[in-house]
């Protein structure tokens, strides 16, 4: 398959996930496992499709990892570039809605003003059921 498992940095771009904790990899050879790719594909509905795409991902991780060169001991993380802006508060008045025809225009299928969707979520095929590099 695509990659040998090596360890992802603890504070990689997927840092919100405690599920992927692993030892830090000071060398930064940052290979991403097939398991992780499959997981990401299911979560984000992206198709990595090729070894090249995975390599690009690994490069992106390595690029972001350079942040760790900065000593952020005791520094509050920035949550948002908007943190100095005021959050605008809207008055509780009804000013929109009532445009069902316009909205339904975009829908592929419609039944009596309802959007139509398939029943439940359609699961992605599992890794081993697929041909390598061709998904969905």
């Amino acid at each position, binding site marked *: 398959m695509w990659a040998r498992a090596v360890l992802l940095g603890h504070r990689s771009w997927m840092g*919100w*996930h*405690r*599920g992927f904790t692993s030892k830090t990899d000071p060398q930064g050879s940052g290979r991403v496992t097939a398991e992780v790719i499959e*997981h990401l594909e299911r*979560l*984000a*509905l992206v198709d990595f499709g090729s070894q090249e795409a995975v390599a690009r991902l690994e490069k992106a991780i390595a690029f972001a990892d350079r942040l760790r060169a900065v000593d952020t001991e005791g520094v509050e993380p920035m*949550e*948002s570039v*908007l*943190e*100095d*802006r*005021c*959050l*605008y*508060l*809207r*008055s*509780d*008045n*009804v*000013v*929109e*809605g*009532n*445009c*069902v025809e316009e*909205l*339904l225009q*975009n829908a592929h*299928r419609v*039944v*009596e*003003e*309802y*959007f*139509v*969707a*398939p*029943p*439940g*979520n359609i*699961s992605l095929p599992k890794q081993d059921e697929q041909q390598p590099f061709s998904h969905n």
Partner: protein
Amino acid sequence: MAAPMLRGRCLGRCWALACIDSGSRHGRGAATGFTSSGKRGQSFVAQQPLLTAQKSRKGEHKWAAVVGLEIHAQIASNSKLFSGSQVHFAAPPNSLVSFFDASLPGTLPVLNRRCVEAAVMTGLALNCHINKKSLFDRKHYFYADLPAGYQITQQRLPIAVNGSLAYSVCVGKKWRQVITKTVRIKQIQLEQDSGKSLHDELRSQTLIDLNRAEGQLRVDANISVHHPGEPLGVRTEVKNLNSARFLARAIDYEIQRQINELENGCEILNETRSFDYKLGCTVPMRDKEGKQDYRFMPEPNLPPLLLYDTASLPAGADPQQVINIDRIREQLPELPSETREKLIQQYGILPEHSFALLNEVGLLEFFQNVIKETRAEPKKVTSWVLNIFLGFLKQRNLAVNESPVTPSVLAELLNLLDRKVISSAAAKQVFEELWRSKGKTPSQIVSERKLELMQDEEALERVCHAVMEGHPQVVMDMKRGNPRAINKLIGLVRKVTHNRADPTVIKEILEKQLSS
């Protein structure tokens, strides 16, 4: 986007039936908790002086259950949390949907001030600490009724934390004893609601309505079991609970199920289950594959939400754009606990009655109006309102404001009773008639049906004497100490007097005559 929701998470400790042991006394405020949804993360175990668990023989280990409730409450506002479309019940599908609600590209969330005020009010009413700075996050998952692919919520830093709620529980024989318990509120957060899905099995499709404004109050329960002193167990989430009664049954079932599984050596899966009302059991929900990974991230389109109090209010700020926690606290209506306390102090009623008075819409007002117009003792009024009046309402499935008997009318009736014009039994008869035929006053009914109590004590004494003479056998029984004998005599006297004599007075006279 959607109808605004408040999500509160409260934790209580409830002990599985399997471990009830009269010797154990477990502190109710024990510090146990869950971290945010979806992950087992850090859990911390209670520091409490517990009995040592017996060693592993099956069934001898005591179990403790931990239950956390996620309560979704829809905010009463005109427009939605992040858009200006209307919040309204049962509107035509997709008629209350703006471009933002439909997640059309290029639309942005704009926070509704009223929703923030509602969240602060709720936090204050539940004794929470209000976070002056709170943040919005995106919680990602795919489902047809969530067109954006994520829900805006407050996972990292919600608007209110660490609250508590005191409530009363009836225990003991005949639920007579009322005890007060406290449940901790972990946090309160603002979040969007998803759309509504209607599953059409026949045509194998799902119909989506993005109006929201459904199900004003929903509860999910998180349940796990463990041995006291050991770390918390794996939890399951039970959804699809829509009444307090089913909530209790589902939780009881799930606790027992988990105990059974663990005692048989199986593992508990961290899964989502649904409650099957007909079977009375929880079942795994399909379409929820394994552990959800919501990839929480800060909502990039919303800066932090800042709240102020009077001390920190920036000078010259636009009042429309700032929220002052102190002002909101001042505007809080009197909370139920305060009202109950006042009732107890003012009228000397029992705590459980104070709960009952507040639990029915309009009942407290009714009660207070009766009190205003009657000289009868508050305890008497309480008894009549909570037992007789409320009983009549419930039997006929009526609300307080649909009652044919007004507070004034009941007050008049109670005055007649208080002045001993009629007996208690007669009062009940009058009440029945008042309920049936509107327009008549209690006094009218009393005189029409000649229900006035006999005022002539001597005449009553003569009747009693005559009855005793006429039933020597019963009198003998009475002398021998048979308690039922006197009741028989009382009944006979009442018949003769057409029920116009007070049974208590009759009893006194009979006993006096017997002993003389």
